[in-house]
């Protein structure tokens, strides 16, 4: 059985960094990336953006097959862990601050699913993406199929999930899976630059309002989303001008 993965949480000014560490490939030992309470407490420190990245050369190669095999023996426990893992990724997906995945090297399986739960994905020329689960007779179990389909459409998602082949950065960009491709070793710095651009001089309430509205595009119909926007706007007018 592989060793436990470690999650490092760091603050760089207003920006939070979540680093997946289990060198060299940053295999994930459990379907839960991090404990929910730990993540919530970190967000509650008032970070204005969150960057998720991997320690060393890779983002994460996902769960290692040996680990899954041994964990599945206790079916009930494994199912519960999967559910908790799902909660974590849904939480990241719905978070009201920008969440950016900075991807170097490999981004496979559960690692890929984590990246897909972020708002923005920045990778490097040499990055590789794949859902290899099918080779073990399983499939991405943390919402990755749904999130991938939303980005690429059904056809590409079906091909990637059912074939299990790797795709490179250029293809990932073409399919709309990544938003930006940088030179080697530049993804994290680029993510920092982008996070700063979005959050510098912005009060947290404005960042949250924009993110709420953007998330509502998907979660609600146009009409409902717009009603919420009107509410958010009116509230911001009150808050932003109340001191005058």
């Amino acid at each position, binding site marked *: 059985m592989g060793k436990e993965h470690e999650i490092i949480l760091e603050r760089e000014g207003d920006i939070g960094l979540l680093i997946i560490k289990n060198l060299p490939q940053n295999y994930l030992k459990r379907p839960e990336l991090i404990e929910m309470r730990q993540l919530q407490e970190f967000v509650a420190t008032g970070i204005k953006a969150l960057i998720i990245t991997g320690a060393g050369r890779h983002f994460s190669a996902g769960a290692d097959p040996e680990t899954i095999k041994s964990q599945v023996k206790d079916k009930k426990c494994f199912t519960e862990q999967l559910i908790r893992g799902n909660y974590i990724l849904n939480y990241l997906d719905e978070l009201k601050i*920008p969440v950016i995945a900075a991807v170097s090297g490999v981004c496979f399986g559960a690692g890929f699913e984590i990246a897909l739960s972020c*708002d*923005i*994905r920045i990778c490097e020329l040499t990055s590789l993406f794949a859902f290899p689960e099918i080779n073990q007779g399983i499939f991405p179990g943390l919402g990755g199929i749904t999130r991938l389909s939303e980005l690429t459409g059904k056809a590409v998602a079906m091909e990637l999930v059912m074939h299990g082949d790797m795709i490179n950065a250029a293809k990932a960009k073409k399919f*709309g899976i990544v*938003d*930006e491709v940088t030179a080697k070793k530049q993804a994290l710095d680029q993510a920092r630059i*982008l996070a700063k*651009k*979005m*959050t510098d*001089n*912005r*009060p947290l*309430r*404005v*960042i949250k*309002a*924009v*993110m709420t*509205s*953007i998330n509502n*595009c998907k979660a609600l119909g*146009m009409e409902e*989303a*717009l*009603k919420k*926007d*009107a*509410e*958010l*706007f*009116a509230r*911001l*007018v*009150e*808050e*932003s*001008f109340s001191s005058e």
Partner: protein
Amino acid sequence: MVGNPKISWEVQENIGFVRLVDEPENRMDTRFFRELLELTKNIIPAADVAAILVTGKGRHFSSGADLEDLRKTIRGGHYSHDFLMANYRSFRFFDDVNIPVVVAIKGVCLGSGLELALHGDFRLCSADALFGLPEATFDLIPGAGGIQKFVQFAGKAKAMELIMQGKSFSAEEALRLHIVDAIFPKKELEEKAIQLAKRAAGDYRKYNKKDYLKELTHREI
């Protein structure tokens, strides 16, 4: 009502012209939104037109909402939500109406000005046009459908970046982001927009949007 109108409506042949006429910046204040509501609720639906062209008089399309003026209206409590929803519905009219809407943009197209433009079917602009949703820099958000439309055209990542940063961007960048469909020299803009409106009015929805634009620009989009 006293003062000059903020919007003009004129029908030439089968094309309806909506012009923002509060020069120089064609700002959108409470009065503008009242006029737009009347126009979209009663006047345009009763008019016999096959296409609509939205444009700004003078050098600019619109610098967006007149914050000072809107603030007074919005801070009035319960009224604010209805007011904002009415504004939004006026914009949404151009998205929902069953005839093609062409927006011709020159000069600045900011804030609610851009939100209005984003609700048209086609956006043509001049090379000097300047776009942006600067609301976040005033601690506000674009509240009239701009966020939803921006995500739809430019994708979530670029929407987040440009809306939170509130930075303005050029016509070239707008084209790359799919915020506008084509760029023309300033002198040709209105003529091209009329040409497109007439063309699309005749056989709307028989072709893809792309085909109309290809014909207009004589190149692949």
